[in-house]
């Protein structure tokens, strides 16, 4: 394995880790940026997506099972998100601390429910055979580099989701409403936008994408009741570094976090890489407290 192959391999790993973080953080960025809701149960949507894809793969077999599993995970997590919004979050707007506590409670309930239903040990989603193996390069300066198809698939999935979300926000009517509510909630309301419906939609789409992330993660790691806990902190980190309310900023931040942690891991250990990452973020926030890209909005004037 040559020098370039190692560097290229680590960049690939970084992008791969970053793409999973991005899938998780997209939903948070939407709900946090738009509704100012800190959803502690977001990690559990990841877990729910993982278990749903496990169930789907048990029922449907064959090469297309994964597609069904992803659809199932997205719709299931989105419905659960909608339920959460309708029953809890809707009633606690403007009380961020209460929402934080309530959603944390929901996260504990969901974890214990998963433990009771599926047992404490993780379940396994076996990737279909067309995702086995890796793209290996045997010639030239990158000789020795191998990129697992599973990780390439996850990166591709992330790009597709990011593209669809950008189109949804930039080109559709509901996207327009969303931007209007984001810029000025009262004015949008005065002009006839049903802000409650917009909130519900955005929150469900966000949790749905988290469910999708869970299904993707299940291809490379086991699905356990606590899988969400491993990722929720990084997802918040990405959202804060990226800047509130900017999908592009979130994407850049996820990529940076992935690349930095995978580069630092090569020179030190996994634990030290985490320390370095947190220190970097703290320093970064000192200079750019509003993140990489700061969307101007009246609702956040006071923030």
């Amino acid at each position, binding site marked *: *394995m040559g020098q370039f192959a*190692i560097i290229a*391999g*680590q960049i690939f*790993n970084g992008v*791969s*880790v970053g793409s999973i973080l991005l899938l998780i953080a997209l939903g948070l960025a939407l709900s946090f940026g738009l509704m100012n809701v800190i959803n502690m149960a977001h990690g559990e949507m990841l877990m729910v997506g993982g278990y749903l894809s496990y169930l789907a793969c048990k029922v449907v077999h064959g090469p297309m099972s994964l597609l069904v599993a992803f659809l199932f995970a997205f719709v299931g997590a989105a419905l659960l998100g909608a339920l959460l919004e309708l029953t809890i979050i809707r009633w606690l707007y403007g009380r961020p601390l209460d929402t934080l506590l309530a959603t944390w409670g929901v996260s504990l309930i969901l974890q214990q429910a998963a*433990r009771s239903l599926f*047992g*404490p*040990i*993780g379940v*396994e989603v*076996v990737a279909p055979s067309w995702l*086995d*193996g*890796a793209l*290996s390069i045997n010639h030239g300066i990158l000789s*020795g580099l*191998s990129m*697992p*198809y*599973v*990780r390439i698939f996850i990166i591709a999935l992330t790009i597709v989701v990011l593209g669809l979300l950008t189109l949804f926000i930039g080109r559709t009517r509901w996207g327009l409403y969303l931007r209007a509510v984001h810029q000025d909630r009262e004015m949008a309301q005065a002009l006839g936008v049903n802000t409650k419906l917009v909130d519900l939609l955005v929150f469900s789409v966000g949790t749905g994408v988290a469910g999708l992330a869970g299904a993707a*993660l299940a291809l*490379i*790691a*086991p699905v*356990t009741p*606590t*899988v969400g806990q*491993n990722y929720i902190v990084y997802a918040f980190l990405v959202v804060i570094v990226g800047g509130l309310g900017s999908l592009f900023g979130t994407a850049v931040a996820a990529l940076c976090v992935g690349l930095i942690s*995978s580069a630092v*891991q*090569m020179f030190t*250990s*996994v*634990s030290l*890489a985490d320390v370095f990452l947190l220190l970097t973020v703290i320093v970064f926030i000192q200079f750019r407290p509003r993140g990489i890209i700061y969307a101007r909005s009246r609702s956040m004037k006071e923030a």
Partner: protein
Amino acid sequence: MNQVHNRFRKLAIVGCCALLASVPSLAQEVKVGVLHSLSGTMAISEDTVKNSTLLAIDQINASGGVLGKKIVPVIEDGSSDPAIFSQKAQKLIQEDKVVTVFGGWTSASRKAMLPVFERFHSLLWYPVQFEGNECSSNIMYSGAQPNQQILPALDYAFQNGKKKVFLLGSDYVFPRTANLILKKHILKNGGTVSGEEYVPLGGTDFSAIITKIKIAKPDVVFSTVNGDSNVSFFKQLAAAGITQQQLPIFSFSIAEQEAKAMGTSLVAGGFTAWNYFESLKNPKNAAFIAAYKAKYGKDAVLDDPMVHGYIDVLVWAAAVKKAGSFDPDAVRKAATQLASTASPLGEIRFAENQSLFQTAYVGQFLPDGQVKVVWQSKGALHPDPYDALAFPGKSCVVK
């Protein structure tokens, strides 16, 4: 009127309960504690050890109990939390007045219970392999010491010309100590350590570590990764195109039970080292497997810690008979003086340092999750809590 009626009913119930409770004590009972994690992340492993412990108690009761008394297990849940293990141990000793406790799995849970057993002069039977470097007169260590599991595996790897070793573990006391011992022995025997990496417990991303393994090009990986992280490690290794034929993985925290839960195809071809495999052929093992499956279903899988949990009870009963008393001090002294006996593991007996003489096996996982023995030590090995290279000058003397 109704209230009075109710009160009478309550009284009647209480009276019946009191009567019921007093009946068994006439029939002479003795209580023992069974303390394992029945919930939380460790439940997958510990629940079955509890089962085999109860099986042994049933068998002894069926043949007349100990010293004419029926053994009554008091089962408690350690909830995978060392602090709860410590609380429950105290509860068993003080409130339930048990004469001894069978339990524990993680080294953290053992370390948390140790002061409780020392303070109340009670006795814990600990059934799992561990890192050594501990020697309490209030614990009977039946699981393997390092010289009965990881070091024989290292010898086996060296005999097969695999001298470039990559050490990988979860980040806590057992892997760190095990690797400290392994490193000393690798260097002493002319091998090289081509890397040493740790992941947090429950960690799922092995991409950087796999790249490091690729660069280091070791002959073999010694893995003390524990729990769910193993699934991520083996999956990502396979996805990176590394097969067990190219790079054998020796795992010290995966037995038949974990292999079944992880998916047997993931670990097939990999190596492991224990003092017992379900595939061992001896009459005691055949009887044990038959009895366990009769009680807990024919799909049950047996593994090393379960058998240790089982033999701990049998040895305890034999020691009580020899001592003629349930007193923990008398029992532990009698236990180390018992003659060597046949067990599902082969010939065993407790050494003077309260750890178990037992045979070491190195095995290879078959596609069905069972293990084929590829090497075994010549007879039972003396247990050695303090490795001479890693902890020079320390020795285990129980009072």
